[in-house]
């Protein structure tokens, strides 16, 4: 019987092959520790992965623009339901420590940054093409600086992992804000040196210019650095960094306001490309643009404090960047009109990509330089920068003539120019020390009860404090 022999053969094989049969690759479709940083393509995929990760902070319901817009006096909240608990907590300035909020997104992005930096400096990194290597390091350092900048402004002192060693990072204490800023400046200076000047690399970074401004370049690093210096009150450096951008003819304030946020806008210094296919555009638009009464969806119209600040007659930004939606009157209830942010026009989830997430744009650089110059008492230059933004909006030159008046005018202009973009309003109120004065009025009217100055910082997640014995909570959240 032949089968008998086969059977005996199988039994015999069994006695040997045991160990050998387990020599397999864990998954042929996964990059793993051994192979990730040994080739240009893998590294680029890892950097792309970092960009995907950071996107969670840059747009959407738990991104910085919406959460910080709700916390400040920019966005109002009508949404109901469990899904909207987090927006409601931001809106009423009633944040709680059992929520994570933006913390995990920020730190998992930083972990990717640190993993890539560790990996490149490790053994595999030597085989990389130099151009790709420097683009990647520059891009990672730029991203790390961006995340730390927001972390210190949202949480105050924060732990600052700079490697991917989880045993070290899991025990970190909070670093002083000044040290975090120092690191942010260092990373941005490194990025300035590594990233291409005045051009945007395409995906494969082979020194080929790309029409899309979705990879950070030297000017993107400079633009962020200008903002960082402004926050650090280092006005000469802020002015210099902003000039590095404004001086490039590549960047133009789009004369037609409705072109400022489309993906081909010449005003953009760096925009984050939407990686999702659903929506394929800036996810914020889905929450900001009203197509129905706000209570029917998770929709956030503008507050009356913001709409009331506009010169609705002359300011072209009112007509172009603010939309309105009027409900139908009924027998018992009159019609109501809601105003909403309309910088991004594409709110349909299925529309093809035409708008990205504009993180850095030229108008902010003018306003940074205006403020930095005003602070240095360079009033004429300051007014010129401010007027560049005003004139594009169809407004006459500023009437402010003294230093304080000019600074106040710049801040007001920031409110009107940068509304619903990346929490500028909230962070401006904080850095200028005016947050208590404003929120003392606003928070009770938003239904959040009395304002307390400790509310200007987010709580650290309580579980994180439980897990990392060296962490401490922000005041007011214990």
């Amino acid at each position, binding site marked *: 019987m032949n089968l008998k022999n086969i*059977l005996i053969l199988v039994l015999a094989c069994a006695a040997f092959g045991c160990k050998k049969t387990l020599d397999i690759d864990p998954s042929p479709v996964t990059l793993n*520790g051994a192979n990730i940083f040994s080739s240009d393509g893998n590294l680029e*995929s890892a950097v792309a992965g970092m960009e995907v*990760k950071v996107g969670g902070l840059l747009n959407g319901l738990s991104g910085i623009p919406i959460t910080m817009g709700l916390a400040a006096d920019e966005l109002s909240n009508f949404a109901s339901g469990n899904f909207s608990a987090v927006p409601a907590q931001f809106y009423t300035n009633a944040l709680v420590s059992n929520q994570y909020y933006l913390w995990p997104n920020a730190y998992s992005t930083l972990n990717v940054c640190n993993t890539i930096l560790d990996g490149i400096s490790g053994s595999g990194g030597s085989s990389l093409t130099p151009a790709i290597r420097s683009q990647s390091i520059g891009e990672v350092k730029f991203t790390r600086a961006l995340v730390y900048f927001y972390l210190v402004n949202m949480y105050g002192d924060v732990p600052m992992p700079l490697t991917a060693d989880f045993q070290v990072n899991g025990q970190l204490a909070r670093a002083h804000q000044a040290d975090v800023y120092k690191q942010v400046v260092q990373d941005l200076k490194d990025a300035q040196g590594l990233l291409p000047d005045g051009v945007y690399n395409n995906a494969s970074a082979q020194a080929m210019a790309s029409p899309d401004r979705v990879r950070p370049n030297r000017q993107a690093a400079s633009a962020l650095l200008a903002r960082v210096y402004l926050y650090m009150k280092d006005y000469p450096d802020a002015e210099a960094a902003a000039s590095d951008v404004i001086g490039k003819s590549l960047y133009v304030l789009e004369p037609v306001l409705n072109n400022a946020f489309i993906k081909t806008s010449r005003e953009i210094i760096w925009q984050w490309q939407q990686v999702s296919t659903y929506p394929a555009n800036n996810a914020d638009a889905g929450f900001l643009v009203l197509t129905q009464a706000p209570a029917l969806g998770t929709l956030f119209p503008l507050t009356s404090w913001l709409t009331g600040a506009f010169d609705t007659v002359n300011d072209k930004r009112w007509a172009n960047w603010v939309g309105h939606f009027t409900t139908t009157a009924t027998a018992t209830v009159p019609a109501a009109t809601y105003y909403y942010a309309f910088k991004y026009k594409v709110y349909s989830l299925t529309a093809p990509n035409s708008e990205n997430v504009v993180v850095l744009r030229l108008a902010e650089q003018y306003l940074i330089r205006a403020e930095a110059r005003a602070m240095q008492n360079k009033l004429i230059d300051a007014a010129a920068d401010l007027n560049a933004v005003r004139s594009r909006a169809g407004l006459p030159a500023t009437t402010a003539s003294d230093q304080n008046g000019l600074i106040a005018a710049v801040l007001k202009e920031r409110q009107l120019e940068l509304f619903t973009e990346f929490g500028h309003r909230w962070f401006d109120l904080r850095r200028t020390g005016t947050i208590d004065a404003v929120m003392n009025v606003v928070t009770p009217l938003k239904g959040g009860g009395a304002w307390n100055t400790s509310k200007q910082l987010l709580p650290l997640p309580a579980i994180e404090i439980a897990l990392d*014995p060296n962490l401490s909570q922000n005041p007011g959240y214990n």
Partner: protein
Amino acid sequence: MKLTALLIVIGVLQVSAGEAQKVTLHEKNVSLSKIFKEIRRQTGYDFFVDAELVRRVGSVSVDVSDVPLKEALDNCFKNTSLTFRIENGTILVDEDKPVFIVGRVPDSTAVLGPQKDSLVLIRGKVTDQKGNALAGVTITLKDYNRAMTTNAGGEYIFLAPNHRTLIFTSVGYRRREVKVNGAAIINISLDLDITELDATQVIAYGTTTRRFNTGEQTTVSSKEIENYPVANVLTALQAKVPGVMITQTSGVPGSPVSVTIRGQNGLNTGSNPLYIVDGVPYTMDEYLTQNSNIAHGGLYGQNPLNFINPLDIESVDILKDADATAIYGSRGANGVMLITTKKGRSGATRVTLNAFTGISQVPYLPHMLNTQQYLQMRHEAKKNDGLPVTILDYDINGVWDTTRNTNWAKELLGNGQTTNAQVSVSGGGPNSTFLLSGNYRRQNNLEKLFGGSDQTASLHFSAGTTSQDGKFSVSLTGGYTYDVSDIPPGDQFANIITLAPDAPKLFNSDGSLNFQNNTFNGNPAINARHLNRTSVNNVLSSAVISYRPLPGLELKATVGYNKQQMNEFNGFPISGNPPALGITTGSANFTTDNNTYWSVEPQATYTRDISKGRLTATVGYSVQKQTEDQLPLTATGYTSDALVSSPTAGTSIKPLQGQSYSLTVYKFTGVFGRVNYIWDNKYLLNLTGRNDGSTKFGPDNRFHFFGAVGAGWIFTEERLMKGLPWFNYGKLRASYGVTGNDQIGTSYYLANFNSTGTSYQNVPAVTPTNIPNPVISWETTRKIEVALDLHFLHDRISLTGNYFRNRNSNLLSGYAQSWITGFNQVERNLPGLVQNRGFDLTLTTVNLQLKDFSWTTTVLFTKMRNQVLRFPPSSPAAQIAANLAVGYPVGVLRLLKSAGVNPTTGLYQYYDATGHINPNLNQPQDNVVLEDPNPKWFGSIANTFTYKGFSLDVLFRVVRQIGRSALTQASYVAPPGFASNVTTATLSRWQKPGDVTDVQRYSASFLSFTPYLYLGNSTAGWSDATYGRLQNASLRYTFGNTVTKKLHVQNLQVYVLGENLLTITSYGGFDPETQSLYHLPLVRTITGGLQVTF
């Protein structure tokens, strides 16, 4: 083919001629069998001879012409050790020294010499009580190692010494002993056996009997499974197995079923048992689906046993303790379910038709507010909040017709219908058997608003053959299942029953969705426009090749192959959107899953009698490979609704958001062995071991040894006990051993970067998915078992009690750590300890056993407790983060202490960790009340009554537990007061300062939102959820001989089956089993059917 017939009969049993016939033979060096055949041809005499003897004798030469038969035979046997005797037209051939005396002879005075004339040739027929022939009955000669089985007609022939005893045994029948008393014909009938002490019981890599089993195992037979009109066999096991908790999650067909055998062992490892189908490992993972329609409301996945037709299952054996499971090594920790499918039986070809159909209904629904109460709630909420009715409050501002009062549950639900039809054909000859069956099943969606159905077609077959000499056998078993569901994705149960009772109609008169001038854009019937088609193909096959080269030695190889493929399509057409959203294109998701498994398991078993005992030793090797891949795609940009089911008719195809193609390969090898020794039918010893390797772990940690020792003492075999007439069987058994668990992801030992399914500037993106842990290794479970089996009054009463203690160490777990590390956990082995300890009892009594009436009762009771005994580090913070507490079970509930409703503000309030009422709570630090969500105990009572042709089975089940309280289940999507309906449990709410109640005030503002959100995590959010359920009842009537003869059928039965008939509980929420707001409650099903055998 284990009970191999050693005796063969050449020719047909019939008497034809006298002994004086003449024979002529001219044969040189031919086999005896050739000569026998020739003699038979010439004389018509049959030979009855041991085939082994014929083989041993080899070739002979005979040269005779026209001599009498006797002389010819003398000639044939003259140079052999054989002798012969002629009796009733049959020639009996045997050795001088009859071989049947080689068996053990316990009593020396009974030794038989070569007394040939004491032999009697016995023929007969074995039937059941109704006179049906029983095939495959084993007949053994008492005290001798001789056995044979009945043929397809229930007939047998046996050469036995006179005054000795024959033992008749068959699975499911009571053993009978008959003394040979010179009679040539012994026809006997066997009684159905209830305790089945000596029935064959399937164990890992072999079989045993309940009498000699040293492990803890429960067998559920097809007879019990057939009483359940269910699509998943697990549902039929729900209250039938002590120590096993099976919970359904939703009333929708095909929803996930959770199974834990003796509690959750690990912290994060899967708790699924190992499923073995016909000796081949079957997938234990749930199929993950993109949409939740198959399993409603956030449940994604299909249980793999959905794709094995319960009616094709012969038995399910649930193995629990170390003795029974350690031979499966790494995968035995959570217990093992051995599923044996039906096989053919020798005998005339039988065709069986079985069909049933019936309806399902939701037995009880939540009581929602009517329009009057609802409007009162809404206005009261506005008043409480001091807020005006706004333009957006369509339900109360006059936009919607407030005189409407719709009972939305009625709009949603209809009757579910289940139809099942099966045809099977089986039969076989003496050396081969076959079975072929086909089944079709259809269950439609109870939610008539959405429609659709789940349909399954399956084919099952088995075929086996054994060589003439009984040494070689091959069998092949397999099946194919095709399941398809088109129930629209996303259960809207919660959304529909919480609609305002004055909400507009869901559909316009032309059938289109009604958005009521954009005031009803949240119309939940939108989902009825969404499309689904989820199909699963499942191919299961196993082949067993067995060879017995020497007496007592069997070489066997089991080869298995299993392929499952799931194709899922979910379409979202343009017409399913409110026009106001301006969505002008459709989209669709397409997902393909492929799972392939193969395994090869050669093994050798050697059986030998040593001294007064029998030794059985088994060694084997196992290699398995499992490949799984999943491709989730989304297509967008469809401009025509007619095309959404085509993946290429849109404008783009991309990976589904947040997902990517995945492929995992998982390999597994093991060397296993078992030594079993039964001494004097009294003392039992069983040693098992397995060295296992798995590619889930790093190269240095791949192999691990698992093993167990089991022992038993049948004390009723002791001389002292043997005389007790009322105590017929008693066994004390105990086992200890170590088993393992590797149910984690495949490559945690490496740093993995997985595709995110997205790209940045057209560069495909990958991100790290884990923190690598190179030293990750097996989780081990140490199991101790002590058990007592007692049978009284000839098995009229049987009682089994088990005490068990399983301790799980080297716990595989995602160990919580700060997000600062990039991940909130790292997979590692923790030096913690989790214990499951408890006992269970099974009591079966035959209460009445009359001529026409019988009544049998089985009571099961299980009490067990899960506890974390050790968890490092012991800091409370780390335990809180891991949601653990030493001394409490895995999955402990950490609850805020409720302080009721504040009589002044009307809001829920809670105590903080310091015991003060505090509106600013820190969770989880303030959650100081710890509760065990697991059942405290559970049990069931099953009664079987038979009266003439009727049989009635009734099973009642009790679970003692806590569950989410009526208060948390009072409102689904928003606190009471918002624009969604709530249950009448909220009517006792706070209304004015000074009111003392436990229901928060109606409110539609965010100030009341936060205290409400804490409710479910507070002591007020949990309550007693004990329930008793009439789980199953079945009534069958089998027609008697007069009817079946008239209809020319062998068997005819009609039956009614009922499932989930009645629930008794004081639980105020919904279904105490699912405890879920969002899932359709478990349904009540009543079916009627007919079974005919031709």
